[in-house]
């Protein structure tokens, strides 16, 4: 198993490297000279231009530029953000935890909800309940995140003002709050953005879990479990323990979609995370920040997939020993 972990980690490093290369290619394949648009940018100081030229070594041959660029990335130097006038690394260090909080909350709730609903559907598949829930989940899976986000915002922040409309905390009251109040305030701000992601991911997980269970239920060992005299619930547990493995794998594959969803949700709810940062950076043509976000976001996705794969491997006795 250790060998597998090492191999997967190596693959992750290779992928991060390839993403960095891709960013480099994108910048250099763009029409005109890289950063041509920045020439006239008023915020562009002489010093920053110099730094940019240094980082990308624009006066050197492409090969040298590429090596220098990768080397600086490998040192963790992502350059300076034009927009915020501080290192990209520190901008992302502020944004990433906020995104992780949102995504982790959504993922945990969505996984639990999706598995439970999928199991319920599978245990009475073909029933009215199953078909209704199947229709609901297909509908939810068809709604773009930004529309669902706007819908929830409209419903629960404007029409029924239960939850705040934007941000992570109350901008005025925050400084007067006790730690406990701050936590509650954070939770209140988290509800709508997290719910948006939960509804969409849970519907995907539920559809998948249902199918995975229906694949397992006709298996011989389920018949054995029934012949042992187990209750319906215990039999379902036998099936679920097997059918969970493909669902955990799915979670790993969902990370890119989760991240993409967060880009929209963070923008609708002004959640100060990676997605918000990226879109702001795009608007300002803040290249170092754009590329830095892409690389860091991709590394996050790769690590998420890796964690999911490791979880499956350790949950499946057939691969645990390997």
């Amino acid at each position, binding site marked *: 198993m250790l060998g597998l972990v090492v191999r997967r980690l190596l693959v992750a490093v290779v992928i991060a490297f390839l993403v960095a290369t891709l960013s480099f290619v*994108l910048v250099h394949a763009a*029409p005109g000279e890289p950063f041509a648009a920045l020439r006239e940018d008023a915020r562009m100081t002489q010093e920053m231009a110099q730094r940019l030229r240094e980082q990308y070594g624009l006066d050197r041959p492409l090969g040298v530029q590429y090596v220098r660029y990768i080397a600086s990335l490998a040192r963790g130097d992502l350059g300076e953000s034009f927009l915020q006038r501080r290192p990209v690394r520190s901008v992302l260090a502020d944004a990433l935890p906020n995104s992780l909080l949102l995504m982790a909350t959504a993922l945990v709730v969505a996984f639990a909800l999706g598995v439970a609903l999928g199991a319920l559907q599978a245990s009475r*598949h073909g029933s009215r309940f199953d078909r209704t829930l*199947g229709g609901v989940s297909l509908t939810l899976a068809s709604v773009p995140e930004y529309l669902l986000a706007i819908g929830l915002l*409209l419903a629960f922040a404007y029409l029924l003002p239960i939850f705040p409309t934007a941000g992570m905390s109350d901008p005025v009251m925050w400084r007067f709050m006790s730690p406990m109040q701050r936590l509650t305030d954070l939770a209140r701000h988290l509800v709508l953005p997290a719910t948006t992601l939960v509804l969409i991911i849970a519907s995907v997980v539920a559809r998948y879990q249902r199918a995975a269970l229906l694949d397992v239920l*006709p298996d011989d060992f389920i018949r054995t479990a029934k012949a042992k005299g187990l209750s319906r619930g215990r039999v379902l547990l036998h099936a679920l323990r097997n059918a969970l493995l493909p669902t955990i794998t799915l979670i790993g594959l969902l990370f890119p979609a989760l*991240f*993409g969803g967060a880009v929209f949700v963070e923008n609708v709810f002004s959640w100060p995370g990676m997605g918000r940062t990226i879109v702001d950076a795009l608007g300002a043509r803040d290249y170092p920040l754009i590329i830095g976000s892409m690389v860091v976001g*991709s590394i996050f996705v790769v690590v998420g997939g890796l964690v999911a794969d490791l979880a499956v491997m350790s949950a499946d006795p057939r691969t645990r020993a390997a």
Partner: protein
Amino acid sequence: MHRPTPLSYDVAGAPLDAPAPEVWRATPFRALWQDGAARAALCLLVALLLVAVFAPWLAPYDPIAQPDIIGLKYLPPSAAHPFGTDAYSRDVLSRMMYGARVSLSIAILAMLLSTFIGTAYGLVAVLGGRFTDAVLMRGVDTFLAIPRILLLLGVVAIWGDLTVKPLIVVIGLSGWFAAARLVRTLVLGLRERDFVIAARGLGAHTSSIAVRHVLPHLASPILVAATFGVGAALVIEAGLSFLGYGVDEPQASWGSILRDGQGNFVSAWWLSVVPGAALVITVLAVNVIADRLRDIASGRHLPRG
């Protein structure tokens, strides 16, 4: 959606001897037509395509005309403007009709591009041998690791604003990785099947095996994936427009109309509701068809009764 429980262990062979019900022998389209939800979805999509094709004749107004940007802006739905007007006094119904041309053609053409590239790439990866496969699939893993919207935003932001044609290419190029993976996995399974081994034994050329023996078996899973791909492309195009990186003004797509309504969705609600509803209904229709096609292809489809 009904899954036939295996007919137990003794009689399992028997139903196979019996004549298969009509639906199994029918073409996928016939089977699809027998499902109520899929039939409704098909009708809806056909109607939508007709509207898109005949928009110049059907639209009541010029979609980019700005007759009176003071007096006629933000008019709520009325007889004259069933879907109201926007900030520039443009008729939203007409913009929706022309927007359907843009949104649907981007989605369909991008899907065709993705499917073609993905299928070819997957076939080359498997049939090209172990080393080619490893290299090509690492490449696909890389792209799959990047959220699609991020990849697109990166390209669009760095390369500047795009018109419809480049947008089709860019969206198509960002959507073929999963298809490549799917095709590769399917072909890997098929490669060990008797008919491929037999064809190889008879001395058939690799590429002719791919085209004549392997591709026909991939048709239905690829069709399912491609159909889901149309929905995904619709969502992603509207998403790009929503973030401000879609088709250029004054051209309309559903996403750009949605963007016009953003920030104004309480007072000018129709600017969000109309394109939003159109988007959800269309994507749902596409996904219902894809979902049913998958059921049919996997043999899980049985007439309800």
